[in-house]
């Protein structure tokens, strides 16, 4: 079983990520993360096929997170793909899903990602990460400790440094 990082730990991944051309039948096998296009075209069938089972959906960088707002509480996992290394749309998608749309489930980043992006993506609201195969996940965990603070607000830190500083009397 493949591994991923979830909540800063390396764990087994029991989910199947379905390809862009996946069918409802494939999704019916359970614990599937379906592409947004399939969700949009076959929403009712997917809900029926899942029954009381769990559902996940994945978005590409160009996909609009607002498209799944009404269904967010149906998903155990929302995943966002960085199709190319350096595609920073994923960072904005994560913040929108958490901060604007209030998504509370697992927010998974996958695709062309390196350990060097972990901390920023976590700040943007992601809590699960599938990195490139070349990355050693245990080693990669150190990246979460690379920076001890941040100036800005983010999904993980609702108060900017200047307000926290003021509150702490520094």
């Amino acid at each position, binding site marked *: 079983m493949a591994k991923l990082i979830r909540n800063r730990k390396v764990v087994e991944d029991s989910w199947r990520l379905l390809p862009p051309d996946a069918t409802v039948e494939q999704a019916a096998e359970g614990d599937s993360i379906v592409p947004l296009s399939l969700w949009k075209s076959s929403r009712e069938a997917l809900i029926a096929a899942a029954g009381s089972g769990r559902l996940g959906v994945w978005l590409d960088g160009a996909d609009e997170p607002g498209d799944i707002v009404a269904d967010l509480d149906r998903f155990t996992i929302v995943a966002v793909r960085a199709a190319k290394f350096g595609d920073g749309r994923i960072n904005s998608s994560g913040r929108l899903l958490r901060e604007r749309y209030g998504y509370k489930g697992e927010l998974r980043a996958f695709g062309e990602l390196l350990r060097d992006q972990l901390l*920023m993506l976590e700040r943007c609201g992601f809590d699960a990460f599938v990195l490139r195969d070349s990355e050693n996940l245990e080693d990669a965990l150190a990246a979460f400790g690379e920076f*001890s603070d941040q100036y800005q607000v983010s999904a993980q830190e609702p108060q900017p440094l200047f307000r926290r*500083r003021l509150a702490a009397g520094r």
Partner: protein
Amino acid sequence: MYQYDPIDQNLVDERVHQFRGQTSRYLAGTLGEDEFRQLRLRNGLYVQRHAPMLRVAIPYGMLASRQLRQLALIARRWDRGYGHFTTRQNIQFNWIALKDAPDVLASLAEVQMHAIQTSGNCVRNITSDPFAGIAPDEVVDPLVWCEILRQWSTFHPEFNWLPRKFKIAVSGSPEDRAAILVHDIGIAAVRNGAGETGFRVAVGGGLGRTPLVGHVIREFLPWQHLLTYMDAILRVYNLHGRRDNLYKARIKILVKELGPEVFARDVEAEWAHLRDGPATLIQEEVDRVGARFTQPAYETLAATMPEIEALIASDKGFAAWCRRNVHPHRVAGYAAVTLSLKKTGVPPGDATADEMDRIAALADRFSFGEMRITHEQNIVLADVRRRDLKALWDEAKALGMATPNVGLLTNIICCPGGDFCALANARSIPVAEAIQRRFDDLDYLLDIGEIDLNISGCINACGHHHVGHIGVLGVDKQGEEFYQVQVGGAQGTAASIGKVLGPAFSQEEIPDVVQQLIDLYIEQRDSDAERFIDVVRRIGIEPFKERVYGKADKKSQGGRGQLETAAS
């Protein structure tokens, strides 16, 4: 000069540690070439013609003497004894070995400096007016806002992987000395009728392949909203800027394709969600950042010094220097002084380690130990007592930095060009030198008056050729260097993009072409007060075209015909 607090320092130190790890992974073969490239760029490291080039941030151009001494030390220890000040108020070292880069970054961190986000597709060094805080015409001191923006942009979790690089400039005066309209975001600090501070925000300006002047999308943004509004602009750009084509990825293309009105509407819609959120600025923070700036302990002085005025009347050289390189100051008895890095024969913006040490000593002696790097690649000592001008002039002359050419033809803005830069199509430094040699008579230069001549070695426009009154662009034609000439560009509040005169010229022809343009200007001007750019605006570029090609047509028509095809 802003002084880091422990958190500022810690973040810079942590960045050095992070980069050391990335470099080790790369050298050990566990981090790929392309991925490491993206990571090292965010630490200012390019791989250039000769070796990696390290670009060090000088936030909004402010530099302390101890920092300049550290740059001199770096130049000596890890480079070849010199550095190059850039048009974005940074300094570049051209000969840093990759394995040494983490140590260089560590030595920068020792003096509260870094190379964070000086390259790569992220928010770059914030630039500003070299006279920020001391200009008599200033409405709002932009420095505190620049520092607030520096902190906001540093390691922004959401905007570290933008479609393309992102440049922000801030001005606080009616006269724009920071070229804000040719930046991705240009911020003019202003006051409204009630005396409240706010910002006029322009987006979508820029040079490079598609030169465009920015559009104002908000006339007055109250200061409290600066960061949330920036977040809104950047988010619209991050999500919707083009990522399919490197040359269409800048925000200016998005603004152009959507139209400024639609873009502004999208930003307002995004901002509606962020406005009044926790990132809204508070007075306590503005005060805190302001208090971390050192304040010069100005003396109470007379506005004029009789002995200095007498010397101006009697010494022509001193008078010329005072006229061109000495600038007004808001505090009586003080002046700002430009040390020129535009001596003929020296690449514009270059300084040796010894020169850096001596400039640092001048800053200590004459200007509270601080200086500013200008986007015109000179150094400004911003707080000089007028009574010290003669002593400073003598020192500057001894250093070869008293060339009284600020605002004149030979104060050329010039990129490193093909001598150093891997991107360049042509060399730029020898062209600058040839022009400086042709126009070496000071009386003549003063007669020509204010003019900006800018040279870029390629279309990336690091030498700002589009906004030169005369702009020269190096182009490559089957391995040969040629130069396009344009006129009518301008920076400032009336920013405009120059128009290409016609087919390109060989390097040897350029001084003659510039001479022809100047001759026509002198013939056409209605008085000494009418500047070159004014004449271009009044009579258009056609007469300049005729002057240049009418005379030179027969000489090398064939070659130019080919070039035109190549350029189209």
